[in-house]
C-alpha cells in the first residue's frame, strides 16, 4: 500500500497541477458562445462596448447586425463605404460575404483570430504559423503602423502578399473585393484589455477607416436561409461534384457545417469499405474477435499471484577492491600500483629472511644471495612509463618474491639468474 502510494502520489500531484492549469486557462479564455463576447452592447469584461463608444466619439456609425446576410445587405446598402467587423469568424457564414459581388469598392473586412481552416476554405493567401498560449504585446514593426505597442499576437499569421505587423499578429491584404484585416487576438477589442498598451489606438485605427462599422454580433453558428443558400449557379468556380461526397476532397470545411451530421450517417452504410465485403465477412470477423477476447480472458487470471520475499545482498565481498583496481587503471596510476606491489613484496621477503621490515635493499640482496644491482632494479627501479613497462616490472617483482620465498636453497648457491 505504502509503495503504491509512493508511485501514485507524485503523479497525481503533477496531474492535478497540469489539469488545474489547463482548466483555469480554459475558464479564463473568453467564450465566443457567450452573448457578451466582443459585443458592442456588452459592458462586461469580454464585451466591447468601450470600443463602440470610442468609435462613436470619432464620428463613426456603429450598426449592430446579427446575421451574415443582414451585414452584407447593410454593407451593400447605405450611403457610404463600411467596415464589416467579424469578432467571431467561426460562426459567420463567410461565403455569403465573400462571394457576393454587390459590396461597394473600399469595403473593409476585419476578422478576429480566424483559424487555419477558415483561411484555407476561403483560399486566402494567409496561414496560421503558430498559436500562442496567451496574447503577447509586441511592437508594430511594419511600414504603416496603425498604433504603438499592442497585445495582438496570439495567432501568428504568415502570408506571401499583403502586409504583416506585430510580428505576424496583424495581417492586411485584399481579397474577394475587400480589404481584409486579420487580427491575431481578441484582446485589443475587449473592455478589460482595451486600456492596456496601445490597444485602444489599434482597435479604433482598424475599424475607423470607413465612416460606418457593421458589427456582426454572432454567438451561434449562422446558417444562411435557404434562398440565399442556393447561389450555386452564381458560383463561377466549377460546380464541384465532390462537394457532397464525404470521401472526396475536404475542400469545404468552413462552410459545410450545417449538413455534416446527415452526410456522416449515410456515408457509413455505403462507404466503399462496407460495400466491398458482405455482412457475413464482418460477422465472421466479429466472432473471431470474440474468440480471441475469450482466449485473452482465459489467459488473464493466474492461479495465485507470485509471492515476493526480501532477498539477501548480492554484493561480493571484494567489490570495493575490484573498484579500486579499476580506479587505478582509469587514472593510469602505474607508479602507485607498482609501489604497492613492491612494498608488499619487500615485506614478504624481509619477513622470510628474518630481517627488520625497513632493511635496506642491499642487505636484502646480500641475505638472499642475489646481485644487489638486480634486487635494486626490481625493488627500487624507476617508475614505469607505459603499460608494458608496468607489466614487466610487476612480473619481475613477483618473480623475485617467488625466487626468494619458495626456493630457499638458491640463497646458499648465490647465483643470479
Amino acid at each position, binding site marked *: 500500500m505504502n509503495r503504491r502510494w509512493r508511485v501514485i502520489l507524485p503523479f497525481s500531484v503533477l496531474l492535478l497541477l497540469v489539469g488545474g492549469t489547463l482548466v483555469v486557462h480554459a475558464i479564463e479564455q473568453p467564450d465566443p458562445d457567450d452573448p457578451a463576447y466582443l459585443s458592442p452592447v456588452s459592458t462586461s469584461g469580454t464585451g466591447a462596448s468601450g470600443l463602440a463608444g470610442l468609435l462613436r466619439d470619432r464620428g463613426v456609425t456603429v450598426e449592430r447586425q446579427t446575421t451574415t446576410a443582414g451585414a452584407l445587405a447593410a454593407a451593400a446598402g447605405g450611403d457610404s463605404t463600411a467596415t464589416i467587423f467579424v469578432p467571431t469568424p467561426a460562426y459567420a457564414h463567410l461565403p455569403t460575404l465573400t462571394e457576393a459581388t454587390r459590396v461597394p469598392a473600399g469595403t473593409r473586412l476585419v476578422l478576429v483570430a480566424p483559424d487555419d481552416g477558415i483561411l484555407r476554405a476561403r483560399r486566402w493567401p494567409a496561414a496560421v504559423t503558430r498559436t500562442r498560449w496567451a496574447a503577447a504585446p509586441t511592437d508594430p514593426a511594419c511600414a504603416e503602423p496603425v498604433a504603438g505597442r499592442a497585445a495582438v499576437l496570439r495567432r501568428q499569421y504568415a502570408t506571401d502578399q499583403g502586409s504583416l505587423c506585430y510580428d505576424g499578429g496583424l495581417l492586411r491584404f485584399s481579397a474577394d473585393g475587400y480589404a481584409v484585416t486579420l487580427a491575431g487576438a481578441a484582446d485589443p477589442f475587449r473592455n478589460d484589455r482595451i486600456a492596456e498598451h496601445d490597444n485602444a489606438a489599434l482597435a479604433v485605427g482598424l475599424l475607423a477607416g470607413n465612416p460606418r462599422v457593421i458589427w456582426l454580433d454572432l454567438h451561434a453558428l449562422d446558417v444562411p436561409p435557404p434562398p440565399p443558400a442556393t447561389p450555386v449557379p452564381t458560383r463561377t468556380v466549377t460546380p464541384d461534384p465532390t462537394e457532397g461526397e464525404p470521401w472526396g476532397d475536404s475542400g469545404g470545411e468552413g462552410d459545410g457545417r450545417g449538413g455534416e451530421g446527415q452526410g456522416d450517417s449515410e456515408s457509413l452504410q455505403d462507404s466503399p469499405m462496407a460495400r466491398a465485403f458482405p*455482412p457475413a465477412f464482418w460477422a465472421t470477423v466479429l466472432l*473471431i474477435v470474440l*474468440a480471441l477476447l475469450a482466449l485473452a480472458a482465459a489467459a488473464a487470471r493466474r492461479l495465485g499471484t507470485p509471492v515476493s*520475499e526480501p532477498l*539477501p545482498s548480492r554484493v561480493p565481498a571484494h567489490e570495493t577492491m575490484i573498484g579500486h*583496481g579499476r580506479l587505478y587503471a582509469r587514472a593510469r596510476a602505474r607508479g602507485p600500483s607498482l609501489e604497492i606491489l613492491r612494498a608488499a613484496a619487500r615485506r614478504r621477503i624481509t619477513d622470510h629472511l628474518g630481517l627488520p621490515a625497513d632493511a635496506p635493499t642491499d642487505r636484502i640482496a646480500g641475505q638472499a644471495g642475489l646481485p644487489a644491482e638486480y634486487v635494486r632494479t626490481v625493488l627500487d627501479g624507476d617508475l614505469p612509463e607505459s603499460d608494458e613497462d608496468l607489466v614487466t616490472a610487476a612480473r619481475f617483482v613477483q618473480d623475485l618474491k617467488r625466487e626468494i620465498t619458495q626456493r630457499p636453497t638458491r640463497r646458499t648457491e648465490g647465483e643470479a639468474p
Partner: protein
Amino acid sequence: MVTRRFAAVLAAGVPLPALLPWPWLAVLGVAGFAAALAVFDMAVAGPLASVRLLRDGDRTVWLGGTATVRLTLINVAKRPLRLHVRDSWVPSAGAWPARHDVFLPRGERHTITTTLDPVRHGDRPAVRVTLRSYGPLGLAYRQRRRGWNEKVTPPWTLRVLPRFPSRRILPEKLARMRVIDGSVVARGRGHGTEFDVLREYVIGDDVRSIDWRASARHNDVVVRTWRPERDRRLVCVLDTGRTSALRVGNAPRLDAAIDAALLLAVLADRADDRVDMIALDSAVRARVEGGGHKAKVARLIDAMASLEAAPAETDFQLLARELLRRDRKRSLVVIFTALEPAPMIEGLLPLLPRLTARHKVLVAGVRDPAVSRLAQLPAASAADVHTSAAAQRVLTERDRVRDVLARFGATVVDADTGDFASRVADVYLLLKATGRL
C-alpha cells in the same frame, strides 16, 4: 471466469455466419450458446467454501536436503469438485510442483505432496493455497480473491537449518579431543591441568606422575591422573552486520561464520564446556544462554537457522555491555566477523582492553579467497597489475588490523572460507590442551 475451452467453442462457431443466410443472427446465436454453457458450467461447479484444508509434514530440514509437506483437501460439499490447486511458498523454499489437478468426489479426501528444496536457511513459510473449481464441461471456473485464499490457507513454516559442511571434519577434531581428554591412549596420561583421580601405578605410566605422598599412605605406588578443565565457558559472538552480508564465493560471509560456530559448539559440547551464543548487529538478534547440556546444540542450531545478515553497522558497545555483565564468568569469547579496518579499528579496538581483562578473546575473520587469488594474478595486462595492487592493499590493511588486534591481547584467526571452521576449532583445541581456557 472462462477457460480456453470457452474460446474454442466460440472458434468452432466461426464458419457459421458464412454458411447461414443471416450472419448477424448466427454470431448472436454462437455467442449466446457459448455464454449459456459457461454460465451453466460455473453454476454447477463445486463451491470453493466447502473445501477443508489440512497440512502436515516436515518441520525442519538441513539446507541442501529435501523436505515434503502434505496438503490434505476434504470435500464437504454435496457435489464433486474438480480443482486446480496451487500451493505457493516463498521462492527461496523451492516448492514444486507449481500446480496440482485434483478430482474430489463428495465426502472424499485427497492428499497432495509439495516437495521443497530450500536455497537459503531460515524460516520458509507457506504463503497461500489458491483453489480453482471447474465445472463439469470445463468451460468456466470459480476462483476467489487472493485475500480469501490466504485466509483459508493452513499456516506452515519450514525451518531450514544452516549448511554445516564442517560436519565432515568433525570426527577428526573429536579424535584429537579424545587424545587431549586422555580417553584414548596416545602418549601417557591425559593432558590437562585439572586433577582428576589417584589410581594404582601400572607399568607404562610416567614415573613423574607418581604421587609419593599418596603412595606412602597406601601400600602401593599411586599415580595422579589429570584431565582437561571442564565446564569452561565459551561464548560465540556472530556479527550479523553489513560486513557479514557480503558474499564470499557464493554465500554470505555469515554462512561461513555459522558453520564454524556450529563446529565449535559441537566440539565444546563434547568437551563438557558450556556454549553460549549472541548474534548482533545494531541490536541483539539472537541469544542462547543457560539451559542443560543435552539440548544445547539443538537450541544453538535452531537459533542460528533464523539468522540473517542485516545492512547495519555492528554495535560493539552493545557486545561489550553483554560480555562485561557482572554475572558473566571468565569465558573464551569467539567473535566471528570480518577483519575490515573500519569496524575493527573504530568499533572493536577501543573495547578490546576491557574485554581481554575479563575474557579470553578470539577474533575470527572470514577471508575472501578471491582477494588472495587476485593478489597473485599472473600479470598479463596493466589492468591485472592494478587489480593485483588493489588486492595487495586490502591484504596489507588486513594484516595491519590483525597485528593491532593481536597487540591488544586478542588471538586472531584469519582464514579463507574453505578451512575457516577447521582453523577456529584448532585454536580452541590448542587452548584446551594447554589449559589456557
